[in-house]
């Protein structure tokens, strides 16, 4: 066999070493421009969580313009991709801080967010979590970590009680439910929440007759659906992700399973564009109770307008949750900057702690942080797919349409 062609090893090594040394020891970025807030945003824009990360990024891109006209502050965004990986999240966070970020925002994934939180706390740079549900993130006693997103237990409670509201609003009697859930972080949190809360939420008149957990990586869910169908329950309580939600709904159709309806207590997936696109008419009437934006919110119109201008091909409704919470996180930073009048991280953290914002995009009370750095009172909405579009049907003050339950294809007991 002939010798393969070789490039000079020295050249190769030198190039790599040079690249590495040059970029790693690069001097500090631009001097801290007075009056400009540098926000380091960490999101998973590649690998497994890319879809949601890129959706959140849309909220990041529109924030500076909106906040400039709203609050008159100048924001410079420094974006980093965590690559859905905890190692990368940590080094990117360190890098952003070295390059002069005054505040960090991120990072959707609880594991990566926890790693970034440690860096933020260590360096005394405030982190505003846009989306991450693991309760532990605000249970560590950190002084520099703030989260404007409900914790998993809160999510569960809100989602479940909305089911009670739904049954009441549609005057439906549903006695049994079969519970299917994906065996991942969210599914597990939901299960714990359900087991803990169900005995206490007495206005929930239904019982869970069977539980079917499934593997998030499973390509084929026919067995799971068969099992769930065999439980003969009134409706399906489903905790899922986007990909499996589509597979499951398809299986339901193939196996001719027509319960009263499908209700998700709040996991992501059903309200995303791909769900309606893939399933067509079969997406209709499916219900999800996620933390959601207020279609009639004071700030929603402005953000939605900015979104549509920048992303003419996208519909705001599919990104509202991600964009809304991400925008609010940056807004919190900007608002604190305005009040603090300085980019000093400690001053910013103190200002964030004193945040009190009434005008919001998302559903819930004003943005106020409790001593743990957590915002209590973020609410969920009952969202139903109607005519291929997710519409808020509950609570009534934010509703865009009336809920339909049981769904039309249900043949009755």
């Amino acid at each position: 066999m002939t010798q393969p062609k070789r490039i000079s090893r020295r050249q190769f090594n030198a190039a790599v070493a040079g690249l590495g040394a040059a970029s790693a020891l690069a001097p500090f970025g631009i001097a801290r421009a007075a009056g400009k807030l540098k926000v380091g945003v960490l999101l998973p824009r590649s690998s497994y969580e890319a879809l949601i990360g890129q959706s959140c990024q849309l909220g990041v891109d529109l924030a500076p313009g909106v906040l400039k006209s709203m609050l008159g502050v100048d924001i410079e965004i420094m974006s980093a991709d965590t690559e859905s990986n905890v190692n990368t999240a940590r080094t990117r966070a360190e890098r952003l801080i070295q390059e002069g970020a005054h505040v960090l925002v991120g990072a959707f994934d609880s594991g990566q967010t926890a790693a970034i939180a440690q860096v933020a706390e260590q360096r005394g740079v405030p982190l505003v979590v846009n989306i991450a549900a693991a309760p532990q993130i605000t249970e560590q006693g950190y002084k520099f970590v703030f989260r404007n997103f409900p914790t998993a237990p809160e999510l569960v409670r809100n989602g479940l009680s909305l089911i009670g509201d739904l049954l009441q609003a549609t005057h439906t009697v549903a006695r049994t439910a079969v519970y299917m859930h994906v065996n991942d972080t969210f599914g597990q949190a939901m299960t714990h929440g359900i087991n803990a809360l169900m005995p206490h939420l007495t206005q929930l008149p239904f019982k869970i007759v069977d539980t079917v957990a499934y593997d998030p990586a499973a390509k084929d869910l026919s067995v799971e659906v068969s099992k769930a169908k065999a439980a003969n329950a009134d409706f399906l309580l489903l905790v899922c992700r986007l990909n499996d939600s589509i597979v499951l709904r398809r299986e339901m159709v193939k196996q001719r399973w027509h319960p009263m309806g499908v209700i998700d207590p709040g996991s992501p997936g059903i309200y995303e564009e791909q769900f309606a696109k893939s399933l067509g008419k079969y997406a209709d009437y499916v219900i999800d109770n996620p933390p959601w934006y207020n279609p009639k919110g004071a700030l929603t119109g402005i953000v939605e307008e900015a979104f549509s201008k920048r992303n003419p091909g996208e519909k705001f409704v599919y990104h509202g949750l991600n964009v809304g919470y991400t925008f609010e996180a940056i807004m919190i930073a900007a608002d604190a900057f305005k009040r603090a009048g300085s980019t000093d991280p400690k001053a910013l953290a103190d200002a964030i702690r004193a945040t009190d914002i009434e005008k919001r995009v998302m559903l819930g009370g004003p943005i106020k942080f409790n001593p743990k750095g957590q915002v209590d009172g973020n609410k969920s909405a009952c969202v139903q797919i109607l005519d291929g579009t997710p519409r808020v049907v509950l609570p009534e003050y934010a509703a865009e349409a009336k809920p339909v339950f049981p769904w039309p294809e249900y043949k009755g007991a």
Partner: protein
Amino acid sequence: MSATLVANVVISGLLTGLVYGLMALGLSVIFGVVRVVNFAHGEMMTVAMYAAVLLFGAFRLDPILAALPVAVLFFAVGYALQAGLINPFITRPEHSQFILLVAVATILSNVTLMAFGPDAHSVQTDYQLDSWALGQIIVDKARVFAALSALATTAGLFAFFRFSRIGTAIRACADNHLGARIVGLNVKHLYALTFGLGAACVAVAGCMMTLLVEVSPSLGPSYTLLGFVIVIVGGLGSMPGALLGGVLIGVSEALAGLFIDPSAKSMISFALLIVVLLFRPQGLLGSRT
């Protein structure tokens, strides 16, 4: 647990297993002959799925029909890949081969991410959600089509290797590399041909898969792993073995999901893999080299 439920589950597992087998077929052919561990297998199938989705979007071409042009394309690409990139690695240690194909896989999956974005894409054929009802048994139409194509492809490939001259030559290479060269066979060309055939199988599998699942850039690794489990269980280099392995995995996972915990059902396939590796490493239908 009613008999109907069990019957439904078993039939579904069988059909799914045949589709898995189709997916693993290409891997078996490549591994069995060229002895290269194709860790980019899942990514190749993902690209084939994207091709099918593109053709559907542009021409409303049904994936079953799209399988032919995509397979031809993949044959050419597979041939080029083997002849150009992979050939020098056949005699290299396994870890080098592994890194080569991991690099190829990384490039493929990230290029698809850049080209198509992270959104899932799918085809929407009319019959995709149809099923036939045989009494209480419900049979999924799309899966039946995919399973039939799996059988057809396997039969075709089997016939090719058994009865054609080139097929015999390829088998000779696999059995005795040195001997093949001594009798004057152009081994490099035959290897490339085999890789091309394997790639074509992957293409057919990908097109069929679009009837069943959504395609997104990060699908690759889990299919690669599944492919390897099936190939080992069924037997390296044995085409019926790939189908058998697929069916075995499909049915056992289905039953495990039914009687034990569905979220743990993949543990069954790995347990099966371990058992087979220990007690019959050539797989069920493979032959000891």
